[in-house]
């Protein structure tokens, strides 16, 4: 615990101008609106790695969150009594503000990426569980009746009919989850020194609101969220040509 507090204390604002890094241009010294030279100098050492960390943190959270939600949704699809408790728990987790969630985990798991991932995964559960389940139950009664009537076993019907038909709804949920998580990773940067949030915090806010770092961190964050969203939307069109056929009608 002492370590945790010490680590938090270490994040207290530092004295402006105590930049430990080398080259300092006039723009950086005067905190101009935007200093390209800072971005150039710090890309490979600070900004680039932060971007990669950001993506890693988000991908790990969504992959784990999806795996858990998918299994829960498959179980709940067969055993409907599971739906209310799972929804209730995930709603509860979802309502907890992320900063509060991060800090409440700190005494248990410490200040590290593990803590961040636990909180992030807990945020994906509601969205991904609800959407996967809605997708599975979304196939029309006629389609399900036909699948059964043509001689599919429940398992065959699930994998050949319900699940493929659920893809658009599942991907819609993934898109929301991914964008949400990319946002929350930024917030996590206020606590752990990883991701674009850390660039904003450590290089911007703590350095007397250094404009360039704030803008670079913010813009990259938005670009990343938009790109991830577009990527998933494109992926969905690729794997569900039938949905596109329906759209174009």
């Amino acid at each position, binding site marked *: 615990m002492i370590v945790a507090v010490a680590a938090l204390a270490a994040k207290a604002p530092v004295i402006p101008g105590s930049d430990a890094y080398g080259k300092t241009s006039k723009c950086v010294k005067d905190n101009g609106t935007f200093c390209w030279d800072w971005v150039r100098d710090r890309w490979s050492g600070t900004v680039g790695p932060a971007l990669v960390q950001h993506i890693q943190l988000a991908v790990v959270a969504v992959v784990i969150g999806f795996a858990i939600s998918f299994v829960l949704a498959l179980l709940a699809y067969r055993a409907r009594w599971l739906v209310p408790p799972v929804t209730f728990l995930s709603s509860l987790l979802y309502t907890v503000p992320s900063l509060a969630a991060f800090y409440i985990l700190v005494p248990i798991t410490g200040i590290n990426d593990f803590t961040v991932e636990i909180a992030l995964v807990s945020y994906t559960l509601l969205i991904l569980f609800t959407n996967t389940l809605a997708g599975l139950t979304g196939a029309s009664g006629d389609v399900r009746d036909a699948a059964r009537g*043509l001689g599919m076993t429940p398992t065959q019907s699930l994998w050949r009919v319900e699940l493929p038909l659920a893809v658009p709804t599942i991907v819609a949920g993934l898109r929301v989850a991914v964008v949400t998580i990319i946002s929350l990773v930024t917030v996590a940067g206020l606590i752990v020194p990883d991701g674009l949030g850390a660039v904003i915090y450590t290089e911007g806010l703590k350095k007397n609101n250094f404009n360039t770092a704030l803008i670079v961190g913010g813009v990259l964050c938005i670009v990343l969220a938009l790109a991830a969203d577009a990527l998933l939307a494109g992926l969905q069109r690729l794997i569900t040509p039938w949905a596109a*056929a329906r759209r174009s009608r």
Partner: protein
Amino acid sequence: MPVDTGKTAAPLEFRNVTKRYEGTDAAAIKDLSFVVPAGEVCVLVGPSGCGKTTAMRLVNRMIDMTGGEILIDGKSISGRSPADLRREIGYVIQHVGLFPHLNVANNIGTVPRLLGWDRKRIASRSAELLELVGLPAEMGKRYPSQLSGGQRQRVGVARALAADPPLMLMDEPFGAIDPINRDRLQNEFLRLQREIKKTVVFVTHDIDEGIKMGDRIAILREGGELVQYDTPDAILANPADEFVARFVGADRGLKRLALTNLEQVDLDEVTCVREGETISPGTWVDNDIVVVVDGERKPIGEMTRDVSSDSAVTLGSARPVGASIPITASLRDALSLMMTESIRPLLVLDGEGRVAGWVSIDQINKAVRQVPNESAAIDAAGIDLDK
């Protein structure tokens, strides 16, 4: 052939079948027994809540019966795994239930794929079936959302036929289609059925559709009780009770007329003359009109009995032909035309437009009075239900 009957059609027998849903006292199906001979269309018809769909769904074990036995080709379905059983029974439902994520060819190939056919065989079977139901081969690549209602229904029938099942179940298959297209699909299915000769259980709430589609009709009453099981003609001629009479409607006489077409009737002979032939007062036989025909016996005019001496026929002395009707038309259509043409004999033409005979109100009267020749359908099937 994937089906273990090895036949294109198999007889179906309901033997004292009962279905009672849990928590209810009244039976949904009560002691239902009937036989559908192989290759015939049996229509289950009745008001809503009569259990006709339930009865149909018992056959492929979508619903399990409480008591009794159902036999397909003499073998009980009770011991069968439901999934295996269903793969051997074609299944078509009102809203078709095509799989939206599969294209038409893959929809049709569903059951063959479950049965483990190889890709090539599935593809050629899909193409064959598309042709059979009258859809162009390119349609195989379309998705269900790109088809019209009628096209979807055809694909649904093709999908049901994919593994060449000896038995088909059809639950109000044309119920969601507009009247004009429904009529067309019904005719197409009748044509198809003449070709494939499957045993079909066809559920509908529309007695007219039942009369049109069925070789036999089973009329059910609420509570799943079989009231009458016979050919359409016999049911219309002799309704078993008040319920059936009301269900088939007060116009059952007319409906019966619709079942018979002019080919099945003894038409009156037509006196035909060629242009230039000599006619005498004795030329007129049964009625007052002679028909002037060309070299192929196609009518070009008619003349009334107004010749008092022998004379040569000239077109100038003839007038255009009055009402005529094709020989494929029903007696009901003939009667209707007589009404609009103020009751006089109609000239009946064969498929090539040649003179076939006269039809008058007398033939229609005779047809109505005729006792149906296929009454007692269950006896006709030659199966003893009491054993």
